C-alpha cells in the first residue's frame, strides 16, 4: 500500500532531521559537564591550599568578634575595591539577600472596574442601554482577582475570579464566577504553546480582552451582539504556533465546547467549536507599528445548527521617537456571521410551535476608533459602530466620543457620550419603553492593585 509507506518515509526523514539537530545539543551537554567538573576540581584545589595555609598559621590571640562583612560596598570615603578584586570569586554572604515579590511563588493582582451611565427614561424602561437592566446606575461592572505564575519549569497557570453586578432574568444581583482557569505548556517543540482550560478565545482584536483593558468604557456593539456581554470565553484547548519566519506571524487553533450561547451554544466536544486566528505585525520605522489579523470560528448552536464567524482586524500605533507613550492609535474590526436558524411556527393552531423551516441568516458588523494622547495623563478618542444582528433582522449604529485621564499607570478615569440608533424592530419592550434612539453618558473608573501584566500591543 502506498499511503502507509509515504507517511513512514516522512516520519523517518523527520526523525533523522530531528536527531541530527539534537547532536550538537548532546555534545554541548557533555562539554558543559566537562567544564563543570573542571571548575569543581579547581575549587577543591584552592580550598585544599587555603586549609593548608590556615593549619600552618599560629593560633590567634583572643580578639573581639569581627564585624560581619558589610552588606553594601564601601562608601566613597573608604578604600574602594578594584575591578580585579571584585572579579575574583567571592562569598555571597556579604551581598544583599533578595527579598520582594515572587516569594509567594505566584502573583496576585486585583482590578476594579466601576462604571456608571445616565440615559433617557424610555431607554431605561426598554432595558435598551449599553448596560442592559442597569441603566441610570453606578455599579461594579467587574472586580477581578487574578492569580498567575509559573507552575513548574514547563507550564504557567492563571486563575481569575470575577465579581460583578449583572442583570439576568429581570433581576440585578452581584454574581461571583470563575472567569478563567487555565494552564499553558511552554516548552513544546517547534515553537508551539498549548493552553487548556477555561480561557478567553483569541478571536479578533478585543473579544478576548478583560473589560478593563478595552479602549473605551464599553465594548463595541458588534461584539455585544455577536458574543454577548460575557465576551468570547470557552473551555477547551488552544494551540499557538510562532513559525520561524523572518516576520512575525502567530497562528492559533482552538477546540472548545462551544459554551457561548449567543454565538454558538452546543456545549459539547462531540460537535466542537473550532477557532483559528492568524496575526501578523510590522514595524513601520521606529515610531509606527501595524498589526493585522484574520479570525474564524465554526461550531453549532444550542439547536444543533451550524454557526460560522469570520473576522478581520487591524491596529496602528504611532509612538514618536523620544515619547514615553503612544501618541496616536487607529484600530478597527469587522465580523461576518453565517448561521442556520430554525423558523418556528404553529401551523395547526394547537399552541405548540414546530420547526417549519431552517434558514440561513447572515450578519455583518464593524467598528473603528481613533485615539490621541498628546500628554501622558490625558487621551481622547472617538469610536463608530455599525452592526446587524446575527440572528434577527435590523441593524444599529453608534458614535461615541470619550475622554480619559490617567493620574498613574494604576488608576484611570473615562468619560464618554454615546449616541445610538436602532432599527424599528427593537424599539419596543414589554414595559413600553423605547430604545430606538439612545443618548448615554458613560463613566468608568478603573484601578489596579498588586501585580499587573503589561497590556499587549
Amino acid at each position, binding site marked *: 500500500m502506498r499511503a502507509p509507506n509515504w507517511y513512514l518515509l516522512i516520519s523517518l526523514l523527520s526523525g533523522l*532531521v530531528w536527531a541530527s539537530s539534537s547532536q550538537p545539543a548532546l555534545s*554541548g551537554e557533555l562539554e558543559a559537564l566537562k567544564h563543570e567538573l573542571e571548575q569543581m576540581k579547581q575549587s577543591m584545589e584552592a580550598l585544599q591550599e587555603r586549609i593548608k595555609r590556615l593549619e600552618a598559621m599560629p593560633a590567634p590571640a583572643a580578639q573581639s568578634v569581627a564585624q560581619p562583612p558589610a552588606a553594601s560596598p564601601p562608601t*566613597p570615603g573608604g578604600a574602594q575595591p578594584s575591578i580585579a578584586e571584585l572579579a575574583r570569586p567571592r562569598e555571597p554572604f556579604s*551581598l544583599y539577600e533578595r527579598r520582594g515579590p515572587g516569594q509567594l511563588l505566584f502573583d496576585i493582582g486585583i482590578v476594579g472596574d466601576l462604571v456608571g451611565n445616565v440615559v433617557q427614561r424610555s431607554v431605561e424602561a426598554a432595558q435598551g442601554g449599553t448596560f442592559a437592566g442597569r441603566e441610570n446606575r453606578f455599579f461594579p461592572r467587574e472586580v477581578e482577582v487574578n492569580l498567575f505564575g509559573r507552575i513548574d519549569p514547563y507550564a504557567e497557570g492563571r486563575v481569575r475570579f470575577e465579581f460583578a453586578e449583572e442583570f439576568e432574568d429581570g433581576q440585578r444581583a452581584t454574581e461571583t464566577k470563575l472567569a478563567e482557569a487555565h494552564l499553558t505548556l511552554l516548552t513544546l517543540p517547534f515553537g508551539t504553546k498549548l493552553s487548556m482550560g477555561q480561557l478567553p478565545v483569541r478571536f479578533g482584536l478585543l473579544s478576548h480582552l478583560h473589560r478593563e483593558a478595552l479602549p473605551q468604557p464599553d465594548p463595541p456593539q458588534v461584539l455585544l451582539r455577536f458574543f454577548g456581554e460575557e465576551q468570547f470565553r470557552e473551555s477547551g484547548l488552544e494551540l499557538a504556533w510562532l513559525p*520561524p519566519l523572518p516576520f512575525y506571524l502567530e497562528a492559533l487553533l482552538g477546540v472548545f465546547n462551544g459554551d457561548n450561547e449567543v454565538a454558538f451554544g452546543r456545549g459539547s466536544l462531540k460537535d466542537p467549536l473550532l477557532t483559528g486566528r492568524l496575526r501578523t*505585525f510590522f*514595524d513601520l520605522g521606529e515610531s509606527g507599528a501595524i498589526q493585522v489579523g484574520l479570525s474564524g470560528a465554526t461550531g453549532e448552536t444550542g439547536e444543533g445548527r451550524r454557526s460560522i464567524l469570520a473576522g478581520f482586524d487591524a491596529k496602528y500605533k504611532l509612538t514618536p521617537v523620544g515619547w514615553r507613550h503612544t501618541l496616536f492609535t487607529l484600530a478597527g474590526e469587522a465580523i461576518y456571521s453565517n448561521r442556520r436558524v430554525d423558523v418556528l411556527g404553529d401551523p395547526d393552531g394547537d399552541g405548540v410551535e414546530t420547526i417549519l423551516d431552517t434558514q440561513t441568516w447572515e450578519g455583518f458588523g464593524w467598528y473603528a476608533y481613533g485615539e490621541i494622547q498628546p500628554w501622558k495623563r490625558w487621551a481622547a478618542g472617538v469610536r463608530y459602530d455599525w452592526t446587524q444582528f446575527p440572528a434577527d433582522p435590523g441593524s444599529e449604529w453608534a458614535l461615541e466620543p470619550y475622554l480619559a485621564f490617567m493620574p498613574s499607570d494604576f488608576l484611570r478615569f473615562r468619560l464618554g457620550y454615546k449616541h445610538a440608533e436602532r432599527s424599528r424592530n427593537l424599539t419596543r419592550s414589554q414595559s413600553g419603553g423605547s430604545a430606538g434612539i439612545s443618548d448615554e453618558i458613560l463613566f468608568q473608573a478603573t484601578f489596579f492593585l498588586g501585580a499587573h501584566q503589561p497590556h499587549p500591543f
Partner: protein
Amino acid sequence: MNLRRIYLACFISVVASWLEPALSEAANIRVVATLPDLKALTEAVGGDLVEVESLARGDQNAHDIEVRPSLMLRLRRADLVVRNGLGLDFWAEPLIAGAHNPKILPGAAGYVDASRLVPVLGVPTGKLDRSLGDVHPEGDPHFTLDPLMAPQVTANILEGLARVAPQQAGLLESRRKEFLDRLQEALERWQKMLAPFKGTRVVTYHDNRLYFLRRFGLELAGTVEDKPGIPPSPAHLAGLMRKMKEQKVPLLIADPFSDRKVAELVAKEGGAKLLILPPAVGGAKGVVSYLDLFEYTVAALIQALR
C-alpha cells in the same frame, strides 16, 4: 514508491532543518538583552562570538517600552536572554512568554538574571505599596551605572554564555578579564578626573543615578520626581527649587525623555545648570559601548561643573 513524493519529503526535511538551525560550534551565540547596557556588557564579554540585540534603545525610558510582537520575533531566535532582574524590564515578561522559545524561559539554561549577587542599593524598607509611586520593591535596578558592578554582571553573563556554548567558556573568560582590565584602568582615570568635584550635590530628574553618584563621590540633593512614575506636584517642585538655591546645587541631571519644560523650570528657578545625560549605552551620539557611556558622562559632568 512515487519519486515525486520522496523528493517532496526530502525538500520538507531540508526546509525544516534550515528553518530551525542548531547551535553549532561555528555559529555565533544569539543573545537578546532587554536593555542596551546589558547588550554592551554582553558584547564586551562575547566579542565576535556573540550576536547581541537589545529590546530597548538607549534613548528610551526603560520603564515604558511598548510590548510589540516584533520584539518577540527577536526573542524567538535567541539562544540566551539577559534580563535586568530587578523589575526595570518587567515588560519583557509577556515578550518572553510570547516568543515561544523554551530555551530562554526563566530557569532555563538560556535565561540570565544580570542582577544575581549584585549588591543592590535603595531597597525600600517599611510599608511598601504604590502610595510611594511606581517603586521597585527589590531595590534600585539601575546598577549598570556603577562600573564596579560590571565584574558581577559580566560574571552572570559569562555563566549564561558558558551554559549555552561551553566549548567557548575559556575564550569568553579571557575576554571578560581583558574587558575588566580596561575598565579598571578607565575607572581610575575617571575617578581622578572627578576627584575635584567630590562631595558636590546634584539633583536628578528621576531617581536613576544613585549608583553612579555614589561611585564617583557626588551626592544626591533631591529628585524632581518625588515619587517614581508620578508627575511632581507644584508643592514638591517649589520645595526642591528652594532647597537647590539654599544649598547652591550647581547641577540638575535629566534624561533625554524627561519632561524638558519641567526640568528647565526647576533648573532655572533653582539656580542650576541643566545637563541631559544618556541613561544608557546608545542614549547619546557616539555612546556605543559601556566605556563610551562613562567617557561621555564624565566629560559632560566636568564641563558642566567647571
